[in-house]
């Protein structure tokens, strides 16, 4: 299981990676914005899950999701963001995110979101 974390905050990437490690997911690829995220995603063959922030420089998370979905990829994507207005959530879902995690979150909430998009993260 390899997870792509896209967030312009290095600390937030560490927090998410720490949460993933507690779920026995050790393979993590980090990117600081949508452009880097798209490069790290490549053809998608080595990535199983994407966790992306919304507000980032260069290319935001919504654009990243639109590009990945536009290329026909079906990878599970969770938007991890402080944006929580209903209109924003609807916009993200329309763009193709599978789930939405509002910051701040605790490890339990992260785990719950992963369990929704993955069959069994502990055994993946």
């Amino acid at each position: 299981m390899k997870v792509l974390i896209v967030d312009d905050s290095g600390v937030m990437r560490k927090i998410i990676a720490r949460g993933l490690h507690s779920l026995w997911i050790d393979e993590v690829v980090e990117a600081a914005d949508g452009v880097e995220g798209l490069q790290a995603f490549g053809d998608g063959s080595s990535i199983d899950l994407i966790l992306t922030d919304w507000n980032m420089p260069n290319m935001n998370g919504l654009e990243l999701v639109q590009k990945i979905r536009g290329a026909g990829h079906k990878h599970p994507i969770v938007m991890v963001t402080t944006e929580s207005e209903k209109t924003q959530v609807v916009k993200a879902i329309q763009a193709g995110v599978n789930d939405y995690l509002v910051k701040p979150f605790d490890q339990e909430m992260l785990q719950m979101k992963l369990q929704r998009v993955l069959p069994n993260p502990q055994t993946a």
Partner: protein
Amino acid sequence: MTTVLDRDLSQAVADAVDESIDEVFGMMAGHPAEQVSLHLLPATEKHMADKHPLTVTLSLSGDLQGIIGLCLSGEAARQWTADIIGEAADDINQDVIDAAGELGNLIVGGAKRRLAPHDLKMGLPSVILAGREAFVFPRRVHPIYVSYRYAETSFDVIIALAPQG
């Protein structure tokens, strides 16, 4: 035309920030942040962040305009960093700076969410490594100054907003 926040709106903003702080520290740090004091500063009085070497500011625009600032002691910034990433820092390194910026982002993001009937846009956090950075405001801004205690450390929040127009 009203040029300063009325009492109800000042209280609503302070409450939104306080609830957000409660949520952020409770969820992510495992240590609560306890409010110690809250008061309005005279508009022209300088608040010297002399005991706080690390200052985070986030701008807000829209129905309310201005900044929300956090003044963190070095101990508070390092404690927060250790709590959220599990790595202790001996000094104010890049992780501590990033963590402080993220703290500002989370607190102001949560406050913005709680003030949802107001149309607000949030800027990116700026972290200033200047302990004696002075906060000064135009006369129309009446800042709210709130002190918190957090796991044997302390930090202050300065809410300096004015209505649009």
